[in-house]
C-alpha cells in the first residue's frame, strides 16, 4: 500500500476537505508560505490562496477565538497551534468558548472548528515545548479530543474532525509527524470514539495512545518471548471514549496498564482507570496500573528520556501484574 508520513496524511486530509467544502479554511502561525512547522500545510497556500490559508500574528488567544467566531458564522476553521504548548494562551477559546457556545445559546449556535496542535517530547525542547496537553481539556463538556498514533488513523480521523459540527481538539505528536505508514488511496474516514486493537492478546491489556503505542508494541514483542500475551488498545479519541472495546479487552485479560507521555499525576490515565474500575471491576484480576512521565517539568535535551515512560518500564509493569509479589 501507499506510504505517507503522518504529516502528509494530515496535509491530505486537509486538502481533501478543503476541496470539498469551501467553508474550510486554515489559520495559524506560518501555515501559509511556510506550510507549517512540520509541513502539515505544505502547498495549501499555493493551492487555495490567501483567503483559505493565512498566517495570523503571534496571538494564539486572538486567532483561536477568531476561529470560534468564524465557525459560529458558518465557516469550518482549522486552527493550528504551532506547538501544542502554546494552547495555554488559547485555553479559554478551546475549552471555555468553542465548546460552550452551543449550550449557552440553547442549541442555536454551533462551532464546527478543528484545533490542530503537535504535542509531545522527543526533541529535547524543554519544559514549555514538549508537553502533552490533552489532560488539561478533559473537564470541558462540549469538546472532543482526538489523538491518532499513525498516518492512517490521522487522515481518517482528521477528516471526521473537520466534518464534525463541534469543536474537536486534534492532537498530533511531534515524534510521529515524520513517521511513515500505510495510507490507502481514495477517501475514507474513521469515526470518533472507535478504538483500534493494535495487538490482540489475552493476558494483559495495555491502553496507549499516540507515541506510547510504539514502546508498548516493543514491550509486547519482548514479552511474547517470555510467554506473556499482551493486548494493546489505542482508543484514538479520548472524548468520545470507546468503552465497548475497552470492556471486551478487560473482560478477556482482567489486567490493565494505561500508558501516557504526560506526567502521571493528573494525566488521562486517571479518567480511564476510573472508568474501568467503575464499570468493569468484577473482571479485574489485578490493580489497574498507570505509567506516565515523572511529575516534573521536562528538562532540555536528551535527559528528558529519564522522565518518560519507555519499553523497559512497560515490560516491568506487565511482569509485575503477571507475577504479583
Amino acid at each position, binding site marked *: 500500500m501507499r506510504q505517507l508520513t503522518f504529516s502528509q496524511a494530515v496535509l491530505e486530509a486537509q486538502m481533501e476537505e478543503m476541496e470539498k467544502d469551501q467553508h474550510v479554511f486554515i489559520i495559524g502561525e506560518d501555515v501559509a508560505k511556510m506550510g507549517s512547522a512540520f509541513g502539515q500545510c505544505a502547498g495549501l497556500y499555493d493551492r487555495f490562496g490567501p*483567503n483559505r490559508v493565512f498566517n*495570523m*500574528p503571534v*496571538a494564539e*488567544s*486572538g*486567532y*483561536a*477565538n*477568531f*476561529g*470560534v*467566531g*468564524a*465557525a*459560529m*458564522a*458558518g*465557516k469550518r*476553521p482549522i486552527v493550528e497551534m504551532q506547538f501544542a504548548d502554546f494552547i495555554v494562551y488559547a485555553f*479559554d*477559546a478551546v475549552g*471555555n*468558548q468553542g465548546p460552550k*457556545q*452551543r*449550550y*449557552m*445559546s*440553547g*442549541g*442555536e*449556535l*454551533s462551532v*464546527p472548528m478543528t484545533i490542530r496542535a503537535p504535542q509531545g517530547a522527543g526533541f529535547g525542547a524543554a519544559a514549555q515545548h514538549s508537553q502533552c496537553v490533552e489532560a488539561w481539556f478533559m473537564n470541558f*463538556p*462540549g469538546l*472532543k479530543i482526538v489523538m491518532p498514533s499513525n498516518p492512517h488513523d490521522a487522515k481518517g480521523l482528521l477528516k471526521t474532525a473537520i466534518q*464534525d*459540527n*463541534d469543536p474537536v481538539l486534534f492532537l498530533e505528536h511531534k515524534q510521529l509527524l515524520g513517521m511513515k505508514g500505510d495510507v490507502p488511496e481514495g477517501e475514507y474516514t474513521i*469515526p*470518533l*470514539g472507535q478504538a483500534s486493537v493494535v495487538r490482540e492478546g489475552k493476558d494483559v491489556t495495555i491502553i496507549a495512545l499516540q507515541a506510547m503505542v510504539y514502546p508498548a508494541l516493543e514491550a509486547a514483542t519482548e514479552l511474547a518471548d517470555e510467554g506473556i500475551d499482551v493486548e494493546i488498545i489505542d482508543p484514538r479519541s479520548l*472524548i*468520545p471514549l470507546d468503552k465497548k472495546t475497552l470492556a471486551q479487552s478487560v473482560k478477556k485479560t482482567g489486567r490493565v496498564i494505561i500508558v501516557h507521555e504526560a506526567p502521571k499525576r493528573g494525566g488521562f490515565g486517571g479518567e480511564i482507570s476510573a472508568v474501568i474500575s467503575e464499570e468493569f471491576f468484577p473482571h479485574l484480576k489485578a490493580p489497574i496500573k498507570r505509567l506516565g512521565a515523572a511529575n516534573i517539568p521536562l528538562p532540555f535535551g536528551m535527559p528528558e528520556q529519564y522522565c518518560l515512560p519507555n519499553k523497559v518500564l512497560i515490560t516491568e509493569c506487565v511482569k509485575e501484574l503477571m507475577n504479583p509479589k
Partner: protein
Amino acid sequence: MKYSKNELLKFYEQLVLGRKYEEKIITFLGKGKLQGFFHLGIGQEAAQVGVVNALGPNDYLVPTHRFHPGLVNKLDIKKLTAELFGKSSGYNRGKAFTFHISSKEDRLLPVNGMLGAGIPEAVGYAWALKQDNQDSVVVCVLGDGTASEGNVHEGMNIAALLNVPIVFYIENNGWAISCPTDEQTKIENLSTRALAYGMTGETIDGNDVIKVKETLERAIAKAKNGEPNIVEAKTYRWRGHFEGDPGFYRDDEKHKAAMKDDCIKRMENLLIEQGASAKELAEIADKVQLLIDDAFDYAEKEPLPTPEDILDLDQVYATNLGGELL
C-alpha cells in the same frame, strides 16, 4: 434641527423604554422575583440606543452584560424578558441570561461571560461575513475595563490587518466594578488605542443619542469599506456594578455630579424646544410601561426549563456521538 419632532419622539420612546425596563427589573429584584446578577445600564441609554439605531438590516451586534436598554430596543421584549427570568421560552431557552444571550434571527451575537473573548470572536465573525460577500458589519461593544484585556489587543490587531468590517464600540461608563477608568489606564481617551493598530478612532459624548447614532453610522460605513475603527462613547454608570452592590468605593459628591447629565432629560429638553408637550411625553412613558408590564407578566408565568431540556445532549453537541451525560 435635522430631525423631525416625530423622529425625536421615537428616540425618546426608545430611551424611556430602556430606562423603564431596567427600573422594572429593580422592582422585580426587590420583590425577590428575579434571580441572577443584573448589571444595569441606567444612565447609559443614549450610548446604547444610538448604536441600535445605527445598525443596518444586515449588520450584527455584540452586546455586553450591561446592555438591557439596547436589547429591549432590538429584540422581542417578551422573549428577552423570558430569558432574563431563565424561562424556557427565552431567547436561549433560559440557559443564557444576559451573561450569554444571543439571537441568530436578530443578528445578535452572544454576550461573553469572559470579558474580552468576544472581541476576537466578533472579528472572526465579521471576517466570515466578508468572505461570504455579505454587505454586513459587526458592531462589537465593550466596556472601558474590558479594553485592558489581552484579547482586545489581539482582536483589534487582527481586524486591522485583515481589513475586517467591524466597529469596536467602547461604551466607557467610567467604571469597571470599583475601578474608575483612570485606575484602569493612564490614557485619557481609549479611542487612542486605534493608533496602535493603524486604525482610526474617535471619542464622543455618549449621552447624546443623536451624536452616537450618527457617529456609528459613519463608523459602520467606514468598516464596510474595509476600515475597521474604534468609537468610544463616554457615559456614566448610575447604579452599582450589579444590583446589590453597595458602591462604598464611590465618592458620593462626584457620583451625584456625574448623574446630572441625564440623556433622557436632554432629549426631553430638546423635544420641548421642538414643540412637544408634556402630555405627549407622558403618553409615551405610559405606553412603554404597559409594554414592559405585559412582558414581565408573561415571562413570570412561563415555565422554567425541564430537567430533560437542561440535560439535553443535543444542545451540547451538534454532532452527538453518544456523548455521556454522566
